[in-house]
């Protein structure tokens, strides 16, 4: 290999490295990203939650989104916590969960906006995971609560 060819090879490797680096950094920015991918055992589908809520030992359900959507319609029995993207919402979530045994089954959900852009799910999940909850699940709502729950005919309770 002559010197010119070697330089070109190094240059190509450097370009390839620069191109690939962002893809890797996007794939693992924090632990919750992996846990909250569809297919992860943390993720709960709507039908599974409907069945779980029919059982005597049903999970606690925390709603971590904006109040207007909760008032409009929420999962029966779900407790309003508020937007977990805000420090006050996260504080409220922490305070509510602080007295619970760490083996309490908890399901959190939001559905304010498309799953990939929800600002509330990740902070809420991270907070409860950090607190040590071992039976923590997240309801998967791809587009919104209205689209993926209410309009599919699953039970809805209005008001507070």
């Amino acid at each position, binding site marked *: 290999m002559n010197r010119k060819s070697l330089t070109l090879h190094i240059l190509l490797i450097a370009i390839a490295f620069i191109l690939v680096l962002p893809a890797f950094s996007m794939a693992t920015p924090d632990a919750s990203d992996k846990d909250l991918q569809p297919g992860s055992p943390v993720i709960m589908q709507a039908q599974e939650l409907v069945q779980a809520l029919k059982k005597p030992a049903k999970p606690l359900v925390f709603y971590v989104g*904006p109040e207007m959507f909760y008032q409009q319609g929420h999962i029966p029995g779900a407790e309003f916590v508020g937007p977990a993207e805000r420090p006050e919402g996260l504080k409220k979530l922490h305070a509510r969960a602080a007295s619970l045994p760490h083996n309490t089954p908890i399901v959190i959900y939001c559905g304010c906006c*498309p799953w990939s852009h929800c600002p509330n799910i990740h902070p809420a999940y991270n907070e409860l995971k950090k607190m040590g909850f071992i039976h923590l699940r997240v309801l998967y709502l791809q587009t919104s609560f209205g689209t993926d729950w209410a309009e599919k005919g699953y039970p809805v309770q209005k008001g507070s």
Partner: protein
Amino acid sequence: MRRAVRFLLALIVALAIFETGRHLAHRTSGIPSPPPSVAAPDLSMTDLEGNHIDTGHYRGKLLLVNFWAAWCVPCAEEIPQFMKLQEKYQTKLQVIGISIDDKESELRSFYKSHKMNYPVIRGDQKIADGYGGVPGLPTTYVIDQEEHIRGRLVGATDFQKLEQQISSLLK
């Protein structure tokens, strides 16, 4: 050398596919629901500038009612597109933004910094109920010149399809 170039090209193509996939995954909706024969509500509201807005006054114009929030990333990404539509169809179309932001200061800051060219109203449950509820953000109602709801877009809006619908309704 040729092998290295081929490898680099394959890498670029793979990354392009990866990025396109990520982009498409965010576009969860955008297909207008079948046109329901539902009359749009006639609502009286006050916008962020203090102007009185009566939706009935827009009869004869195509109305786009966009429920959004400044903290909602896909909503915020759509604002420049709605501004372009307002600019393009000035006299024939009116966009109204209905924000469900709980913090007015954040809403006003967004409104000013983006120099939004259409009225924005602070939404509440009554307004949402008027449209039969808001399934999530963003949600946009397409209302024809006769004040009938002709479409509802939930999730990230496909503006190409929306503009096709606008053109069709303006014919």
